[in-house]
């Protein structure tokens, strides 16, 4: 299991545009990807409703995880989206 831990920097948190971009990017990858807030329960990163339900705010830490070929690459991109201001 590969994972990335990042702090969310966007003013709106992982909602609105950042959430949509995050989910759309995750959905394109042929891997199972999860996201968790802090040490909370991981949810499907391809599900906008699950990601919104985490209620990630600016300054929160999220852990994004995936396993398999290309995990590093997709996790880097998702980490960049999640931490963009």
């Amino acid at each position: 299991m590969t994972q990335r831990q990042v702090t969310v920097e966007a003013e709106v948190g992982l909602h609105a545009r950042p959430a949509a971009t995050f989910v759309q990017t995750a959905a394109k990858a042929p891997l199972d990807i999860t996201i968790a807030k802090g040490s909370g329960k991981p949810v499907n990163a391809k599900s906008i409703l699950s990601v919104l339900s985490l209620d990630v705010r600016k300054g929160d830490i999220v852990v994004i995880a995936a396993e398999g070929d290309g995990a590093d690459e997709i996790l880097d991109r998702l980490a960049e989206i999640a931490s963009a201001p």
Partner: protein
Amino acid sequence: MNELTGTGVSPGVGFGPAFVLNWEPPVPEPGAGHGGDAEAERARAERALADVAADLEARGARVGGEAREILNAQALMARDPGLATGVAGLIDAGASAARAVYEAFGAYRAMLAGAGGYLGARVADLDDVRDRAIAVLDGRPPPGPPASRDALDGPPGPYVLVARDLAPADTAALSPDVVAAFVTEEGGPTSHTAILARALGVPAVVACPGAASIAAGTPLLVDGAAGTVRPAPPDADVAAALGIAAGREAALAAVTGPGATADGHPVPLLANIGGPDDVEAALAHGAEGVGLFRTEFLFLGRSAAPGEREQEEAYLAVLDAFPGGRVIVRALDAGADKPLAFLPPPRPEPNPALGERGLRLLRAHPGILETQLRALARAAARSRADLQVMAPMVATAEEAAWFAAACREAGLPSAGVMIEVPSAAVRAADLAAEADFFSVGTNDLAQYTLAADRQVGALTGLQDPWQPVLLDLVGLAVAGAAERGRPCGVCGEAAGDPALACVLVGIGVTSLSMAAPALPAVRAALARHSREECVLAAAAAVTAGSPYEARAAARANLPGLAELGL
């Protein structure tokens, strides 16, 4: 019927007959089952959700902009894989497709509603997707508001759209020619009705109790700033309300062209931008150039520093929008509160505002500044805009000299400094000997002068840009710049306040840069007053004892503001 009061979320005044959108979304009965072919029922549910997603995306593509983003986000909900799993499970357990959709959405709905705030406001978006999917399964697509006035009886002219709540899919395609105002019983300032109303420039009142019981056809006078809805108002009141609104709009729109006082003293009006995406709004509001181009968007949230080529293209995208105009780029302004992932983590700073930030950070990592300045020089060489570069968080003349030398080394002709630290304002003449121009950042200047952290809400009174001491410091910066014949602009929030803008010009500030939407009001305010009047207003404000008195004293000397409704 008495006047109704709600929350005004999109300013302006609208008048027209009520068009009441009354659609009670179908609720499938608990326990409703399917005929036994679970596989076929699952396929039906999948198709309905896919149809709704495609319809929302198509509507978004037609209107573009912010509405498109909102509708695409709703489409993502319809395509949610977690939701699809829930729907399939419920159908396998015997539920009809419609009931399965209803229940599967319900689980997420409870989570969002429980969170309240911004997420709570998304419940309306979620419900809309659910209702549309169920309506498709029932074979009864939901009605929307008429997209043209021709479809309605009664006098011509736009109508006031009244509903319990409005879905983005309904409001996105409307235009101010068709709709005079929105009134909803539910919703809040962050609801999508509010966001789309502002984007369309249509007045809107939300969270308005009693709105849903307004009878169709009732003439309504809606004030989207005050949050009031008056049913069947007297003609004279309608004429007066529309007259005031139209007068203000016309007065602001009538003043175009470069910024200047009534007697022709030029004051370039520039926009503050955070990246190439903001250029369109700057141009739309008549910016003559850019007075503050924040470059942090290129650096923050990156695991590696952006390359010279990437930066060059981003700068060029802005420069090309202002051929012959001025574009002032601020060098990277980072600090412990906005750390850069590609630098070693900063040592913990108990007070980041007073820490290693702005120019101090650039001096600690000179390679980053060198690349940025080289990229700027390359962009300038390919463009017809007048590129100037300035340093953030400069406290001493020695720092100004260091930055100016770095800019000259890179081949950049104009190097300025921001005046944000009181020491820089007090010793402005020394800094002016090293820098080519000044730009006063009033927000940080207030924070440092009054020792009031910008992030602490309880201290907003000390952050008031009308604090007379700030006017004193702007005066010192202007005088120091003038000794060396240097220009001194202002790029803080203060520049976007029409009254304060006049005062700053009276103090001797040579250009004003602000958020683009503030430009028309500042342009109109300057055009109404002579430089002499601005000087008198400044003198009155500077001698006041408090922000409140300074504002009142300045306004007493600026009679044109009231005429403009500002």
